[in-house]
């Protein structure tokens, strides 16, 4: 059988053309009303359909997808002293950006994404009083109030920092992360956007 041509109410028409290969292929239309596909744009494809897009100039995807998932970057902008030998939460009072308003920079200084998925989280703690000679400086990502991933360095200069990064799953409701810093010596954090910070972005949906 050749092509199936459907004539419109005016001069337009649609042609359904089967592939020139052996075998049986089936086109199944959904049992719902509405437009399945159009050249006008702005249409929504829901459910679990699988489809391919070839030679597309612009693709827009809704739902829990990394392409438009939350991203943030927060940093410390006010001096904070911590006790030596004590893992201390670092207050990150300022934000460079927070696309989904998921970072609390006023009360708990934590990132609580409201979209479930896997996030790349980066964090750094620096101190101006680390002192050289084997004293440790640490940065830790705390997840839901407990140490989750840690980085330790033993600096050779008096101003130094530790950096930590990991891929972390968030359930999109209650999971959160915070930055904790550690210094063997009593410490005052170095202030500035480049020193004490945490940032992150969704890289994969749940």
């Amino acid at each position, binding site marked *: 059988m050749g092509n199936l041509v459907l004539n419109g109410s005016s001069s337009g028409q649609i042609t359904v053309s089967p592939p020139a290969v052996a075998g049986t292929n089936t086109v199944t239309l959904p049992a719902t009303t509405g437009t399945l596909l159009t050249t006008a744009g702005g249409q929504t494809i829901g459910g679990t359909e699988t489809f391919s897009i070839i030679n597309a100039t612009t693709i827009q995807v809704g739902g829990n997808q990394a392409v438009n998932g939350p991203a943030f970057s927060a940093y410390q902008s006010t001096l904070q002293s*911590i*006790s*030596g*030998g*004590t*893992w*201390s*939460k670092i*207050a990150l009072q300022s934000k460079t950006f927070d696309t989904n308003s998921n970072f609390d920079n006023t009360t708990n*200084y934590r990132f609580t994404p409201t979209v479930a998925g896997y996030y790349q989280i980066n964090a750094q703690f620096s101190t101006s009083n680390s002192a050289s000679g084997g*004293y*440790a400086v*640490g940065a830790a990502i705390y997840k839901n*109030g407990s140490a989750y991933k*840690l980085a*330790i360095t033993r600096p050779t200069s008096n101003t130094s920092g530790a950096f930590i990064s990991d891929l972390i799953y968030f359930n999109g409701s209650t999971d959160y992360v915070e930055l*904790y810093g*550690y210094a*063997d010596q*009593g410490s005052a954090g170095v202030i500035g956007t480049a020193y004490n910070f945490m940032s992150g972005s969704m890289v994969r949906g749940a």
Partner: protein
Amino acid sequence: MTLRDKICKIYTDLTFLDFGPDGTIVLQNDGDSKGDYIKSWTHPTHPQPSAEQLGSVQ
């Protein structure tokens, strides 16, 4: 005087390494009104000091 300083006054043989990332005494501060506190204590010989002991350190 910090919490670590008080503990070291009670157990004078402790060093900063006991409180370090590889140590057996973990102190923490969650940025709330609780301040510095003992998160965990797994030192092999010294028992965790009581609040009374810590409070009496001058």
